[in-house]
């Protein structure tokens, strides 16, 4: 009744919107292979010069490396912490459970600018030097709700009897956790890690407040935006990063579907 094939108003709308969504991205891509540093039509000529310059620009690559480090580390921590809360939420009964879950989900509804300045205040008060660490800590907090929700979904879907069986057969709880529960939720943990990674990798609003002398890619990009002649190089890197992110996301989606 519903699977009406062929073109319809709805599919027309979908493809129209997709075209609109891709237009600015297409413009960016053109920008990265355009000879001019300003994009006006008709185009003057095409070049790969910006990609070449990108490989020679140490600062740009360094900022991308910093982003990779922060994203990898913070998503690892966020996945570990999210899994812990998920286990408590699904497998334990205790009085402060509702409060703990609320606490872990709350970062979703605190505007980033508020959390950013609050963390800046804390780090300054404790005289902690701003660095990649401080950015990573903030990213762990904001990624935690995502990792929690992803792992909870997986945990809630599997039969607690499996655990009980393992323990009846003489396994203690840590062994059961390691041998039974973790393997079952592992795909969800990888998917949570990748989600947290993408959240952190592109995050700017928090990072701008918490960056020390080493910028992440978005922070560096922001500092370069006022130099028109640097823009094509940044866009070239962004095109490469987009391809990288896309690969990660496709992998995450595949893993999430592995039921």
């Amino acid at each position: 009744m519903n699977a009406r094939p062929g073109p319809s108003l709805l599919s027309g709308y979908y493809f129209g919107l997709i075209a609109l969504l891709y237009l600015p991205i297409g413009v960016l891509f053109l920008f990265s292979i355009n000879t001019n540093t300003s994009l006006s039509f008709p185009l003057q000529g095409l070049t790969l010069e910006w990609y070449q310059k990108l490989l020679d620009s140490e600062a740009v690559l360094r900022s991308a490396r910093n982003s990779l480090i922060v994203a990898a580390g913070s998503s690892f921590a966020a996945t570990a912490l999210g899994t812990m809360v998920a286990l408590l939420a699904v497998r334990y009964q205790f009085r402060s459970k509702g409060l703990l879950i609320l606490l872990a989900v709350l970062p979703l509804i605190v505007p980033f600018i508020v959390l950013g300045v609050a963390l800046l205040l804390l780090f300054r008060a404790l005289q902690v030097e701003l660095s990649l660490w401080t950015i990573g800590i903030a990213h762990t907090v904001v990624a935690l709700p995502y990792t929690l929700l992803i792992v909870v979904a997986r945990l809630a879907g599997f039969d607690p009897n499996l655990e009980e069986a393992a323990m009846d057969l003489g396994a203690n709880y840590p062994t059961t956790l390691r041998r039974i529960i973790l393997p079952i939720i592992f795909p969800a943990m990888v998917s949570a890690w990748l989600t947290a990674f993408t959240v952190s990798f592109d995050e700017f609003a928090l990072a701008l407040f918490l960056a020390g002398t080493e910028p992440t890619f978005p922070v560096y990009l922001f500092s370069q935006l006022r130099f028109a002649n640097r823009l094509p190089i940044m866009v070239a890197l962004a095109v490469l990063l987009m391809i990288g992110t896309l690969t990660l996301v496709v992998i995450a989606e595949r893993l999430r579907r592995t039921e």
Partner: protein
Amino acid sequence: MDSPLLPAPRQRCRGAGEQERTVLFDRRATFWILYLPPLLWLGLFFIAPLVLMAAFSFRADMRGALLQWWTPTLQQYAAMLETPGYWRLLGISAVLALIIATSAVALAYPVAYFLAFRAGRRAGFYLVLLLVPFWTSYLLRVMAWKIMLGSEGVLNSFLLYTGLIREPLGALLYNRTAVVITLIYVWIPFAALPILAALQRIDLALFEAAFDLGATPLRRFLRVTLPLSLPGVLAAFFMVFIPTVGEYVTPLLVGGSRGSLYGNIIQDFFTKAANWPFGSALSMVMLAATLLLVALAARLVDVRRLIE
């Protein structure tokens, strides 16, 4: 203090007493291992900074060390009350966020509907296609709009090229309209996700029932599909609204001086103006407003159903 309880009393075959005790011990020890790290992490890096900021908003000035005793004063809030400009900007930010969130949700709804009911086997591919723009660098998507709308930008040079206009339109960039257009664009794919999740949960038998009872497609949509997808619509609305109220990056890039929002003055007081107590008071007002709004919405819909 909290103590973990076993889900249900279990029967064991051999050495029940002995084994029960070790299992209980294991579970209790494991409980603390699972409980303390997230609690400490969130306490130190989420609650503590917010509490410190709250305390800072009752401080008179920046003199002295950051961590020291100070006599609480309401003077920052009083100063804020005296300046209607801040409240106006908070109001404008809230209204713009409302417009942006509503538009993004309205534009995303048909897409989610298409993916849920009409896309068929290729729905997964179409979903990824929709999300790719969302995974592109946020700053660069905003920059892309600057390139699109600028006076030497794509839109202007295209209109000049086709001869529709004689000289570039200057009013496209550096105002609040540019901020609104850019943010709607940024949020559409994201807004589609919770709506899609809600639509996918609808039991298709309900459609048949509506059909059998003689409902027209429009009536079926208004009486069955739309009400059942409302939790997803609300979730999508808030997932766009909350980050947008506090937005300061997009106004910086495409808004110019005429397009700044409440988030921008918070940023200014923590950077250029370096008046952290006043910035803290501004932040606290925004935080309180956001939490209040979410709490109200949570009363309207069952939040647990959204999380599932």
